[in-house]
């Protein structure tokens, strides 16, 4: 049978740092010996329009590098729902920002509506919403060790952003911890 695949989409709008979250997660997963392929859709409207970073994670080689059906959907903007929903598995893990993504499709699926952007604003910058989301995703999915992502974050953050990024990651983990505990 084909190698195990786990597909994640970070969906939102241009400028939210989705590709960066994807790259950090991919590098962290690679350090744990996994293979990752990341793709994005190039639209003329990428500034201010729908933007995505799609990760295909596999233990062995990633055969087909494009997503087929998402196991996990991280939504940072309402815009991302429409182009993503039909390609999301029925029991996929959905993490959505309460403020930018208030209206989620009806249905019985494991959804975590979390104040990702509000937490980032409270930390000092909405720009780290992507890192808060990354923390929440890792707490809820367990696809990567916290030490691995922290190592990547330390290596790739500009010095002036490092503390903020680490705080944002921790806040993301903390935000999702009660939910994760309740679920287990």
């Amino acid at each position: 049978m084909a190698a195990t695949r786990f597909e994640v989409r970070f969906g939102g709008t241009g400028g939210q740092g989705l590709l960066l979250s994807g790259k950090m997660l991919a590098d962290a997963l690679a350090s744990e010996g996994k293979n990752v392929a990341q793709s994005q859709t190039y639209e003329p409207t990428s500034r201010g329009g729908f933007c995505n970073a799609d990760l295909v994670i596999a233990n062995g080689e990633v055969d087909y590098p494009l997503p087929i059906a998402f196991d996990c959907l991280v939504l940072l903007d309402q815009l991302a729902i429409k182009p993503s929903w039909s390609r999301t598995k029925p029991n996929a893990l959905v993490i959505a920002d309460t403020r930018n993504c208030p209206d989620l499709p009806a249905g019985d699926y494991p959804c975590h509506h979390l104040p990702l952007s509000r937490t980032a604003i409270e930390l000092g910058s909405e720009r780290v919403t992507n890192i808060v989301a990354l923390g929440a995703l890792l707490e809820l999915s367990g696809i990567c060790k916290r030490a691995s992502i922290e190592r990547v974050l330390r290596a790739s953050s500009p010095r002036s952003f490092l503390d903020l990024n680490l705080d944002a990651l921790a806040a993301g983990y903390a935000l999702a911890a009660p939910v994760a505990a309740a679920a287990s």
Partner: protein
Amino acid sequence: MNVVDKARVKPAAKLLSGNNACALGAVAAGCRFFAGYPITPSSEIAERLVTLLPQAGGVFIQMEDEISAMAAVVGASMGGAKAMTATSGPGFSLKQENIGYAAGAEIPCVIVNVMRGGPSTGMPTRPSQADVMQTRFGSHGDYPMIVLAPASVREIYSETIRAFDLAETCRTPVILLYDQVIAQSSETVALEPPTTPRAERKWATGPREEFKPFAVGPDGIPAMAKPGAGYRVHTTGLTHSETGFPSQDPETVNRNLGRLFSKLERHREQIDSWEAVQCDDADVVIVAIGISSRAARRAVEICRASGVRAGLFRPITLWPFPEAPLCAATKNARAVLVPELSIGQLRLEVERLLGRDKVEGLHQFSGEPITPAQIAARATALASEA
């Protein structure tokens, strides 16, 4: 996601896009000159090399158009530099004039063509595989061409290096052909710099008086006179004799043009490259390149899991086409399926080799890649029909 096979990927693996891997491969191959013109979806190659080349003692220049970028690459190579350009469909069309010059005057160089939807301006950010025939026959007149078609980030790196080696060894332009998805998607890879020595150009040596710039030995490759080395030879796009000067003498023209083709045939062992996956017992063999071959690889797994014996044949060197390996890989197959992002270009070549009865196409030119499920469904249907 519980089993971690640590042996498969080195700890230093990092997410890297295909275009970035191409730039890194070029520098590792010894490329020291790049001339280009901005075009989606190939610009990342130029944007990476603008930094890498000066650090390696090389030159980067953005030219005024696609034509001059190709001309500057040939000019730099005539001066002795390993040189490259990168473009996409509309630019590739414009470059044909000087690609033909490089083929005729036997100037080594590497041209990257990242395929996007066409015709004309088409779909700049969507993949296509409809330049398969243009890479082979894009410029006027008869000339041979080496075209390499990598299908992953890692392979773009290694095939870029091989492209430079083949260009220098065979004294010919080499085209690196891949699609927008392979170019702009990223994969986690730990790139290993090549351990073998790189191919270097055969430079003219010996007394100047006796030197004939297009006289050859048994390998069919003329030694090139390096400007400044005292040979003072003439290079032209006109048909020429062994002296390098224009000639329309039928016998001379025949001999020289015939040699252009035979020099590649003599190096087929180095040029040919392909991958055959589970073809031996396959009822249906899928022939594909680039992103379609990645979908086909998964489709083979899907088919096999449901009891359909499918296999994949993937030309890595697209031109000259690996004829004998394809015939061998499809010997036992009852049907051959060619999924491609075009109306049927790769299929034409496969049909030429295997006949029309056996070959089916799965063609899509909407700008959407063909999915593993599409290929698996078609292969399954073919297996039951056959």
